[in-house]
């Protein structure tokens, strides 16, 4: 009996819900990253005065979290359903709860809590205030009001909601292992991702070429700075993302000592700060088009 919502229906439901709330339904951004926050649709768009409402699924790679497909809850790559709205709507908490209801989670049948969890991503110079949302004791979403992005204090404030797709699906489908989740049409999560999980874990922990990755990092970094100097903000940002992912691979391999770690993080942070400023400058030069569009609509 499969009356329980499969993952693709969940995603469709969330897309419909947030689309109706005025979010643009974007697609996953095609550079590797550790979290949906790092998509330019969040990181860059959270900066500056222009309004921005978007929702998208982001496959998020965290090499160090890989478990060869053996752990029922830990994954090299998981999926985040990301919703960003700027300025944060007054009733964003209610929207979120309504979205859970759309997924069939009736708050009266559960215990839903907003537990303080202030979010920080030091390597990207980001900080926010908010909660982790507990559903019967399980963290199913991260809810953040961005305060600083790329080292810049933001105004207006972006609200970010990140649903852990696998977590939430495990709850909805009542399975103990993510690999038993139904993605769609009777196909299981494990059928799609178990082998890649194993291979990526094997690669990240045992096989990756450290020398090559170290060279990549340096080369990506150099290219990012070169492109920023040329005012090519978006290509530069792609290379910053590549630096970040390469660092994560090196870290998983144990190739970065604790001392060096801080050094790499600071190199990425410097680029993130720079690109954030460059992005605002670029939008300003364009006259903040989305701001004007808003005025026209009003």
């Amino acid at each position: 009996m499969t009356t329980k919502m499969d993952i693709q229906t969940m995603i469709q439901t969330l897309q419909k819900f947030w689309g109706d709330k005025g979010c643009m339904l974007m697609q996953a951004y095609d550079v590797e990253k550790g979290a949906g926050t790092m998509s330019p649709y969040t990181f860059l768009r959270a900066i500056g005065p222009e309004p921005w409402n978007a929702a998208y699924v982001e496959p998020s790679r965290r090499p160090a979290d890989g478990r060869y497909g053996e752990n029922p809850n830990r994954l090299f790559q998981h999926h985040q359903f990301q919703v960003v709205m700027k300025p944060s709507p007054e009733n964003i908490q209610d929207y979120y709860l309504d979205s859970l209801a759309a997924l069939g989670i009736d708050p009266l049948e559960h215990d839903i809590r907003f537990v303080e969890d202030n979010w920080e991503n030091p390597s990207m110079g980001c900080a926010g205030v908010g909660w982790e949302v507990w559903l019967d004791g399980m963290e199913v979403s991260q809810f953040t009001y961005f305060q600083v992005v790329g080292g810049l204090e933001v105004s207006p404030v972006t609200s970010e909601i990140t649903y852990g797709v696998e977590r939430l699906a495990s709850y909805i489908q009542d399975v103990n292992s993510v690999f038993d989740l139904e993605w769609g049409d009777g196909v299981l999560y494990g059928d799609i991702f178990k082998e890649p999980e194993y291979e990526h874990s094997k690669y990240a922990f045992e096989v990756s070429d450290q020398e090559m990755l170290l060279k990549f990092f340096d080369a990506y970094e150099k290219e990012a700075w070169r492109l920023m100097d040329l005012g090519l903000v978006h290509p530069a940002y792609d290379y910053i993302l590549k630096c970040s992912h390469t660092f994560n691979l090196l870290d998983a391999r144990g190739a970065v000592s604790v001392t060096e770690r801080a050094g790499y993080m600071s190199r990425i942070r410097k680029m993130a700060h720079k690109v954030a400023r460059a992005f605002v400058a670029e939008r300003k030069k364009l006259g903040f088009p989305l701001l004007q569009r808003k005025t026209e609509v009003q």
Partner: protein
Amino acid sequence: MTHDYLIEIGLEDMPAHVVTPSLNQFHDKTVAFLKANHLEHGTIDCYATPRRLALLVHDLAAKQADIEEDVKGPAKKIAQDADGNWTKAAIGFSRGQGMTPDDIVFKTVKGVDYVYLHKAIKGKSAAEILPGMLAVIKSLTFPTRMKWGAYDFEYIRPIHWLVSLLDDQVVPMKLLDVEAGRVTQGHRFLGKPVSLANPDDYVSALKDQFVIVEPATRKQLIRDQIKQIATDHQWQIDLDSDLLEEVNNLVEWPTAFAGTFDKKYLAIPEAVLITSMKDNQRYFYARDTTGKMVNAFIGVRNGNRDHLANVIAGNEKVLAARLEDAAFFYAEDQKRSIAEDVERLKAVSFHDKISSMYDKMGRTKVIADILADKFGLSTADKADLDRATSIYKFDLVTSMVGEFPELQGIMGEHYARLAGEKPAVAQAIAEHYEPIAADGALPQSLVGTVLAIADKLDSLMSFFAVDLIPSGSNDPYALRRQAYGIVRMIAAHDWPFALAKLQPAIAQALAAAGKTNGLDFAAHQEELNAFVIDRAKQLLQGEKIRHDIVDAVTVRSDADIAGILDAAKVLTAHAADDDFKAVMEALGRVLRITGNKATDTQVDPDKFKNNTEGQLHQAVTTTAQTFDAEPTEADYQALKALVDPINAYFDATMVMADDAAVRANRLATLQQLARLIRQFGDVSQVIVK
């Protein structure tokens, strides 16, 4: 007639730990506001949940008292010119008081006529004053603040509603685009918005909407529910007050429930089970009547009993996933030997600028060796200490400590026992972090204490060596707390600890062992010594030792910590003696005349010119033979016995004699005595009346 006033701030969910302090702050600032505005009031009831802070002011005066007063102005001769016309001074004064010169009267003060105005200020009504509460709301401070939407305003969380009700009337105010009114919000899921007719309705109206606004009532309800569950199952529950306070501020309508987990997880160390339940999930854990942990927990839902089975099942599943992880880590960690973990410490940084954890252990070992000799540890204890210093940080690379950092040391002890280490070694590993808080428990074992001191001393010397010296409130590595811990441990064992001598010895030993990582561990000696002595001062002040005695003993010449503490103890014990004044004055006089100048001159009895010189010299020499290395009661008594010879000496002897040889000889005699006195510090600083 008096009034009731209700003010409620409605917010998105505040952090639990912020709720109570914010409510107290709201109360105190409101009291100050009412006082500053001369509005009398009765009791103030305080209410709070995660989503609201509210105050109900009872018996609020209808208005400020009318004030009648005579305001004194300039002298008459300044206020009027020769023709009796009002001067600019008089006109300005009247205008300043909101009146005209026609209102002026004259009064004579000490024979001079002055201008006066009689003012009658009508008190403002409460309704006129209370909109000022908006400023009180804005003035609340929080540990973290946030902006939201397009506003520049910062607060703990976004504000959604305000209730401001004076009896049945709304006192208007507006914050951002929130207008104060009479409508409050019920429980987020179970309740509805409710319009309040009067402030007095607040508690009952919200109770109807599934919100218990009185924190104490809510907490008692949780306590009772948990006790009921415990009774039903014959469990013992540790009602941890911090957890209870946190849970209380996570719910508006609490319902406690019991859940269980698979018995197999009871094989995981208890500390891990407790951390998973209490810290991660905010559950209370349970023991049976014999004190054994049971495979169950108690959680508290923010809601009623409907569909409680769902909630329990969900919570059980989450906990099971956590414990499954913990069980996995526990098994994985045991696959590696302690030696392998120790090896991996080479890749773990203690601090970027200092060294790896592995190297830190190496330094601690050198320091512990030196301390063990100084403290007189037995050969057996030294052997245990040696083993402990070789491994004591190994648990930092275990998966369990990676997952639960707060279990560092505790897991180390556990794994060490499993690996067959001696109990004393395992215990020392857990104890070396102690005292964890300023007033936290001290290590129980000797080996643990020495390891704890050595580890902390290494941290102090290392951070000072790379110029990371605490200043002002900036002490990111908690070096003050660590130094204070050292002082407390030294005090508890009365061990010698003179950093001025110890630090060079350690620096030398580290250099000899090739363990300096290129750093200068002899650096900043005076600063580090003063830093530690300041902590001894802190300890003495905490024991309510007189400030002048603290000042006196902390300038002891060798700055031995145990000596400082002993000296303070002895002097304090005699501070109320009838002869304390005489003793301090006599000894203080010796210190003052000799100053801090050392002398190499040997005392030559042939140069004595009167009997008292020989008598004092004889007495001092005898006393010196029995004097202890540390200040003791006997030493004090011995110095006291010298008071008469000292006074006789000063009566008969002019120390600063014209003859240089005689003068030097006299100073040398007194220097010999001063060295003994200085065991108690600079007693000339002790204030005697």
